[in-house]
């Protein structure tokens, strides 16, 4: 790793001030950033840890709205959401491995917006709200492509608000070496309509499959998806799976998610 300064503030205001320095970067649990630094693929002047800020560790369940602080770990989400939002808890409990889940944070995952990460599918599939130190951003506006988000320089995710659906499920086709999703589909049924979010598959990052949503609005059953498919042209093709394979998996995993959601 290249050298950098380290700061661990205890309030959001201090963290925002620390991040104002040029080339300063926020550090969540570090389960992506530290390996990246070890490969010398990033060269921040300063890392500002967000894990010592009590406000970012808060969790609340306000009857139908689950609010998760930005520095809450995957393991903590898995435990805390098990009763209120089981599909989200299940997703969190299969990110990486146990040691990763004890450090990695929801805010870190969403700020990084890896195209194969699980949390972007949950946030987009739930129509979540990303709350920062400066504003609130709807998930539909937040995800803007590969590793691209609506966050400005130095903007910190303080919390994520998840409306709890009537039913939901996440199906992850595991890339067995990385534990990321080769394709992951989050399907959620709300009174206002069905949302289907797909991760791992597209060259543009997480996306909503609107055609499937419309079909599932009419009938929330796997058969409603018969004959529907995503365009293979915009899918990721790599040594783990071709564009056509991923496009096929999107259909299969969406059906499985709907079947499992019941």
């Amino acid at each position, binding site marked *: 790793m290249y050298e950098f300064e380290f700061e661990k503030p205890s309030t959001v205001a201090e963290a925002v001030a620390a991040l104002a320095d040029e080339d300063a970067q926020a550090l969540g649990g570090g389960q992506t950033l530290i390996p990246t630094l070890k490969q010398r693929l990033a060269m921040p002047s*300063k890392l500002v840890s967000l894990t010592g800020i009590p406000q970012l560790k808060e969790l609340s369940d306000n009857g139908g709205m689950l609010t998760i602080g930005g520095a809450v770990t995957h393991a903590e989400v898995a435990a805390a959401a098990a009763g209120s939002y089981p599909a989200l808890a299940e997703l969190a409990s299969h990110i990486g491995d146990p040691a990763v889940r004890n450090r990695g944070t929801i805010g870190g995952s969403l700020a990084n917006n890896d195209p194969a990460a699980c949390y972007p599918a949950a946030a987009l599939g739930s129509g979540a709200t990303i709350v920062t130190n400066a504003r609130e951003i709807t998930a539909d506006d937040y995800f803007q492509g590969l590793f691209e988000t609506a966050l400005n320089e130095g903007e910190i995710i303080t919390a994520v608000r998840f409306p709890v659906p009537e039913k939901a499920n996440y199906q992850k086709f595991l890339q067995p070496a990385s534990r990321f999703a080769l394709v992951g589909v989050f399907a959620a049924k709300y009174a206002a309509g069905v949302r289907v979010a797909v991760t791992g598959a597209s060259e543009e990052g997480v996306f909503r499959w609107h055609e499937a949503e419309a079909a599932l609005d009419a009938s929330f059953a796997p058969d409603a998806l018969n004959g529907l498919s995503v365009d293979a042209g915009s899918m990721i093709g790599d040594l783990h799976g071709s564009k056509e394979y991923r496009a096929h998996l999107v259909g299969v995993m969406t059906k499985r998610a709907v079947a499992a959601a019941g």
Partner: protein
Amino acid sequence: MAKVSMTVNGKAASGDVEGRTLLSSFLREQLGLTGTHVGCDTSQCGACVVHVDGKAVKACSMLAQEAEGAEVATIEGQANADGSLNTIQQAFQDHHGLQCGFCTPGMVMSAAALLKDNPKPTEAEIRDYLEGNLCRCTGYHNIVKAIMAASGQDVSSIAAE
């Protein structure tokens, strides 16, 4: 350089570290606790698993300063007070849960974390929990068997040695 202080295996430990000093480097190079192994440079192998405030983490993927004030447990603190192997370590020996031994510190620390939360795991739960611990020798069967045995369960149904 900044001063960092923590409790390691029940004893106070401190030292001067850089911002980029990893917890694994601090344990190994400054405290001389070389039982925490570093088997990869990609955060995948799990040989460096230690407990920080009771939770299993990869010491190679956490900055030393993030452990300021924490209770850290490493493989060196796992044996019984009289120096004999603890239940998990003894089970690894009894069931041949290691060959070269490089991954063993991480395996034992992960097993300890699992059994603390889930004292009677199923074979599937053990295999699932060891997702982040790579072993290139054993094929895992005897590691799983050792952890089952350490939890006081019958191991006769698990694949032969």
